């Protein structure tokens, strides 16, 4: 009876392990590390499999020996006294040396992989070097201005990269420690205030890759997401061109009134609507909104504006903007706008439904 239970457990353990393997075949999950789309994530997954199979062998051998011993050496008679063996030096040397040797073998690809991920390929172009800055709880991105080396182009929460090129990223933070992580492209690197960090990755296929802050950074840590959008290099260049100019002014009267509200309600205190800034200048408190209506997501990945194919759906966008403006704290608990902006802290200055509609029209015109 007891024995059956024991073999059942080992069977249970074996099946759960197999399930792990099966789970590994879920490449379509948004943040699966089993679906690398670039060389850095690939090299990391490759190492993982190495150590996984090695670990599996050790696991099966040791758990097997444990189960075998439990069956073979179970008590037969209470009065039985087995031989009082105190040890065996040769055996002990073997089971010290063999694991040490195995670990030494694993160290070689490990240290290789370490230096690989720490240094961007020499072919990395300077225009493919960008900055990512962590804020509570959103990401700011800056690109070198191709037309003026003293300037930078600012955007937020969505970062475009050229397919097939290594991209170097300098990481910073303005408040607490965040961590920059796009599982399908590369493992994470922390964004440490005043201690600039560095990482690189490359996307081999065009597509939208999910990213998320991985270091606990306060109340809405769970709501700090971003997207990496990999496009062919010409598209990347034209995207950057669009970004460097302000959005076209809308002819919609509601939107024009909204532009007024945007100023009078104090939004401009934290949000910029032009993108070109001096290199190294301090950014605004809130995300840059110059092209907010062209982004596939709102509120650092919390609300989806786009259809399946990635193009922005105006109805969705307006609905999301309204949801956000009505009660940002509901979407992202603890965010600085609901605790800092007068329109949310002072009941007398609360935005009216009309003002919200005007703002929604204005913001959704910022393509």
């Amino acid at each position, binding site marked *: 009876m007891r024995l059956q239970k024991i073999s059942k457990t080992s069977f249970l353990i074996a099946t759960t392990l197999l399930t792990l393997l099966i789970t590994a075949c879920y490449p379509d999950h948004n943040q699966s590390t089993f679906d690398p789309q670039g060389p850095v994530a690939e090299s990391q997954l490759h190492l993982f499999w190495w150590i996984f199979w090695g670990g599996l062998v050790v696991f099966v051998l040791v758990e097997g020996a444990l189960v075998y011993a439990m069956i073979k050496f179970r008590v037969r008679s209470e009065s039985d006294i087995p031989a009082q063996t*105190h040890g065996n030096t040769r055996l002990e040397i073997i089971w010290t040396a063999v694991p040490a040797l195995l670990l030494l073998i694993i160290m070689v690809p490990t240290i290789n992989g370490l230096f690989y991920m720490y240094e961007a390929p020499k072919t990395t172009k300077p225009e493919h070097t960008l900055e990512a800055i962590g804020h509570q709880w959103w990401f700011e991105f800056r690109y070198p201005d191709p037309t003026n080396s003293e300037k930078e182009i600012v955007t937020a929460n969505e970062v475009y990269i050229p397919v097939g090129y290594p991209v170097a990223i300098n990481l910073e933070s303005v408040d607490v420690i965040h961590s920059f992580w796009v599982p399908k492209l590369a493992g994470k690197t922390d964004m440490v205030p005043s201690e600039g960090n560095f990482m690189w990755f490359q996307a081999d296929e065009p597509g939208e890759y999910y990213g998320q802050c991985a270091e606990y950074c306060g109340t809405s840590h769970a709501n700090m997401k971003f997207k990496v959008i990999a496009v062919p290099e010409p598209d990347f260049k034209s995207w950057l061109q669009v970004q460097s100019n302000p959005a076209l002014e809308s002819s919609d009267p509601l939107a024009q009134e909204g532009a007024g509200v945007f100023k009078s309600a104090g939004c401009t205190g934290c949000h910029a609507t032009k993108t070109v800034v001096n290199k190294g200048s301090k950014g605004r408190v809130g995300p840059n909104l110059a092209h907010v209506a062209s982004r596939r997501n709102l509120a650092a990945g919390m609300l989806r504006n786009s259809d399946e194919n990635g193009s922005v759906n105006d109805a969705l966008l307006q609905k999301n903007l309204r949801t956000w403006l009505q009660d940002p704290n509901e979407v992202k608990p603890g965010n600085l706008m609901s605790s800092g902006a007068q329109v949310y802290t002072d009941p007398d200055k609360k935005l009216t439904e009309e003002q919200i509609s005007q703002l929604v029209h204005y913001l959704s015109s910022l393509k």
Partner: protein
Amino acid sequence: MSTFPISIPRPVHPTGIWGWFTTVDHKRIGILYGVTAFIMFLTGGVEAILMRVQLAGPELDIVSAAVFNQLFTMHGTTMIFLAVMPLSAAFFNFIIPLQIGARDVAFPRLNAFSYWTFLAGALMLKLSWIGGATDAGWFGYAPLTSVAQNPGTGIDFWIISLQILGIASLAASFNFIVTVINMRAPGMTMMRLPLFTWMSFITAILLVLAFPVITVALIELTFDRYFMFNFFNVANGGSVVLWQHLFWVFGHPEVYILILPAMGIVSEVLPVFSKKPLFGYKTVVLAGIIIAFMGWMVWSHHMFTVGLGAVANAVFTVTTMLIAVPTGIKVFNWLGTIWGGSIRFTTPMLFSIGFIAMFLMGGISGVMHAVSPSDAQQQDTYFIPAHLHYVLFGGAIMGILSGIFYWFPKYSGKMYSERQGKISFWLIMIGQNVTFFPMHFVGLDGMPRRIYTYADNMGWNFWNGVTTGGAFILVLGFLLVLDNIGRHWKNGEPAPSDPWDARTLEWSIPSPPPEYNFKEIPIVRSLDDWWATKQGGANKEVPASGGSEENGHDIHLPQPSYWPFVSAAGLLIAAYGVVFNDLLIPWGLAAIGLTIGFVGVYAWSLEPVNDPEEEDSTH
């Protein structure tokens, strides 16, 4: 003693509740530690269950983001400082003097002080839920702990309670180091020490070395918060990475502080229920020492993604992998112990075997983390809670459960229900795998840890649901354990002195042991002396229990004292005074508390001895 200013006599063996407040008996203190820590373990469990309910499905709204962040911070802090460490301390207290043939620890009143101080720290931390507990994580990374980020009192409670718990741990550790070095029975050489005592001894040394590091870090943080210092304020040249180094220089040895006592327990239980000595005693001791030593060289593996550079990460990769070697040695030696034995599957034995099976998995995933490039994909994901729960739950807690059942006859004097014990083992064994194994999947599937909710489209729904289900199996298992202990402690069958046919000295005396433990201090002739005595048939009699002539009148025992309790109470008041330092008079409450504490220590040091005859006849 004429200089004693406050002539309060020592309590004369009070009974009832006062007996517990003034006791200096290591066995009673052990029980206090155990019961308190188990209650704290349950509170940590409630915190865990609340988190699991919130994460049972995507975008649930059972607890708020703010509360969730407090829950995981308190869960971690509670389980480490208020549950696993003091549960180990409970065994140190009860078992070590018995295993080395001593009548008490070296400093009995200091021992009582350790317990009351621990209780003060525990209350301090748990009561911070009123008004908002800390939400900066158990690791308290700067600058989340700064006043700017976290103006509430939660962090202050956390800091001060950890400092108080540190005092408790340090006092206890010094006590046990001195006890093991000085109080061993004649013939009990270091290399005849039972393995549990050995591992506890190493743990105590680790604690003495590790706790000052966190103490310094916490003092720096206190100065930052209270007096606008800039240790961790980058705006004025401080460094947030400094905190991480200090925290993990403490934090990694702390991991071994949590696991070594459990390894010690397992190393006692396996030989007894296999009827064989521990395989390679010297190697296991040595491996423990090496683990403790190397534990200092691996702290930066908690910081692989902080950006210390390829060279630093390479060095810590190598050291972290190497620490797997002595850990592996232990596992193999445990296998060697049961190999060729005559295995009895009692409840403690099942938990010890479960320990090996589960700890091995935690060890393998630990080596996975050591591979720093692929760890960049695992760091701060659910893969880490999976790993750490296999080590701390599958390891430390399983080991402690094994000890709870193994020594139950000794500390309660009763027998537990074996049947119920086995059912609870299977529930806990299955429950933990259902709870913690799927965390590997969601972690590798990109789910970060410490998130209070997740979106529906990430593919994490199913396994999170499974994990939450597993947590409830664990609840069932622990309810059974609780019932088993509680009911049989009261009404169980009386236990014989040596129900397991065990090997070490604590089983040579009655269950429960008399206050003086050993009627005669034993003379130790070999490793596993009690087993050798039984096998050799030498006429070393089992001392009879509780006869009227053996009530211990002729044996000198440490006397009860009020002062450890008073000193600890003073500390608790002072601690509250530090957090609420603007109450009525600035720092007034802190001053009152410290005064009480000092009076306590002063009176303690000049405390008279009750019986003048005893004073004459002993030191």
